[in-house]
């Protein structure tokens, strides 16, 4: 009831079907004495249902780009439309709202709250979205079931393995049915086995028609994506679509 209607523009309602539409995006970090130009004019368009892997060496600006895509940070220049909505000029609270409704994050170090159970962690975005308690519980359970953790709902993060924690994080990212799921090195802190579990899960999500942007060093993970964007020194150097 108090659960806001979202996905006004999940691609279909958008004139051109682009979820992400970035034009000439720059990001300059002003540390006072020196200015660091992390992104030097990025053009990036992602359509609904795409699985994009962003690759590149450390310090190339790929995490910065992901933060901008996820509205965790604001660009210094250029225009950015997320799901047909202009992001420039939004204030902190409006950006928080956009993150809540449109974006699901998966982080390298999971970023789960240690004092909460798996279920409560998954509930969190819905709590901020103003959803009622019953609805929250129901959905959180459902999402945990889907990532294969239906029997771990009352466990704290410390009682879970790395792979399980990342799966909780993925369930959390999906909680609000976002337009796009963003992952920053999702397998970076996992052993090979858990890593490949998480990769399979990502691929599965893609198969369900979700849009994913994943920053990764992991060539195996990148190879699973439908499109690989390589960034070097703040610019896109290659953008290749795999032949299906």
């Amino acid at each position, binding site marked *: 009831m*108090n659960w806001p209607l979202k996905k006004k523009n999940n691609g279909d309602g958008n004139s051109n079907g682009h979820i992400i539409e970035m034009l000439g995006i720059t990001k300059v970090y002003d540390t006072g004495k020196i200015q660091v130009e992390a992104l030097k004019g990025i053009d990036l368009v992602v359509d609904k249902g795409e699985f994009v892997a962003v690759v590149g060496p450390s310090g190339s600006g790929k995490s910065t780009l992901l*933060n901008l895509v*996820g509205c*965790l*940070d604001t660009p210094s220049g250029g225009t950015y439309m997320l799901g047909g909505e202009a992001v420039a000029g939004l204030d*902190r*609270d409006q950006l*928080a*709202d956009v*993150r*809540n*409704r449109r974006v699901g*994050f998966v*982080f390298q170090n999971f*970023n*789960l*709250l240690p*004092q*909460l159970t798996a279920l*409560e962690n998954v*509930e*969190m*975005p819905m*709590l*901020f*979205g*103003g*959803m*009622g*308690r019953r609805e*929250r519980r129901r959905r959180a359970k459902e999402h945990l079931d889907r990532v294969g953790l239906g029997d771990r709902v009352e466990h704290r993060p410390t009682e879970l393995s790395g792979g399980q924690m990342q799966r909780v994080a993925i369930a*959390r990212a999906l909680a*609000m049915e976002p337009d796009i799921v963003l992952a920053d090195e999702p397998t970076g802190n996992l052993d090979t086995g858990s890593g490949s579990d998480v990769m399979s899960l990502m691929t599965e999500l893609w198969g369900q028609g979700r849009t994913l942007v994943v920053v990764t060093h992991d060539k195996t993970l990148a190879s699973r994506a439908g499109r690989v964007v390589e960034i070097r020194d703040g610019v896109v150097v290659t953008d290749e679509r795999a032949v299906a």
Partner: protein
Amino acid sequence: MTSFGSFLRQLVRDVWSQKLRTFLTVFGIIWGTVAVALLLAVGEGVHRRQTKSFAGLGDRIVIAWPSRTSLPFEGLGKGRRIRVDETDIEFLKKRVGGLAEISSEYAQNLRATFGDRARLVDVSGVSPIFGEMRNMVPAEGGRFINPTDMDQRRRVVFVGNELAEDLFGEIDPVGEKVMLQGSPFLVIGVLQAKEQDSSYSGRDHSKMIIPSSTFQALTGQRYVDLFIYKAATPDRNKALTERVLAALGERKRFDPGDTQALGIWDTTDMFVWFDTFMLAFKLFMGFMGILTLTVGGIGVSNIMNVVVEERTREIGIKMALGAKSRTVLSQFLLETFIFTAIGGIIGLTLTWGFCAAVAGTPAEDAIGTPVLSPQIALLTAGVLGLVGFLAGYFPARQASRLDPVVAMKL
């Protein structure tokens, strides 16, 4: 709000995992609350006790003693003696408007004997109304002088409590005969012990009181030593005194502006002065208390700041997931508010307990009974609320302004 339950559960969990921190926070507030409330309560207790001992002299009466003129008036030189007798008192009763009560008082030092004990005693002859005006309450089993005693010039005596102990020892004085100037007097009552810290002719606990009619017959004294009067309410005493001076001045032919002809002691002045003094005293106490509470508040603020730092990552994560600044802000504010409320309630309870514990102990004689009045509790709660808000606001604002990207990396 649907999130309130979740918030509370989180809070409880957080508080539980940080027992020492929580304890210190709440302790700071308790300490501050007890300081404010106790200072104010003790102040109030001292005030009440002091007011009561002032009232030992009388219930906001004016004391007047005829003396000598200091100004020439209508051809009469100064230094003339003003004498007032019973007819003048009757005249004042009839002629001065607003005079609620008046009693003459004759006083002499007389020899009193009971059995083989003899004492020189301050004896006063007064009207029946005197007892009420001067707050002389008889102890159980006794009475004060009544109108019949007065009319029939009975030889009855009302005895001060300490004098009664001295003269009668273990014997209950009521019903006993005591000799005054060689005449037997029946003891009709003993003064109930009272606080009295000012007097004009000896403390009431060491006096004997007899009817003024009997006094005059016994001693032959015609003129009063003094008389006491009061208006219906204390605030009218001043105007009443002016009318008394005018009426008596006209009758006795002295300048109503002559401050010496009739000595005047308006005891209400003392109450007014004391109330003012106590207000300043309580303001001072309250100020000290507020300072103490502020120190407690700064402690809480510090701890909340540490909490913000400790939880920066958590705040970052929450913001990344869509928590608005307002949510983070209100979480910290509410947390401080809950700490403050719990500390405040415990503090007020402790203070209340202390007040209850002092009652009936020897400490009561020195500081009176500390009273935690609703006003004090309310004032403390108000100050506490303000301190709590300020202590919570700045850390909370700091938390809500964190940049999610930066906060999460910590």
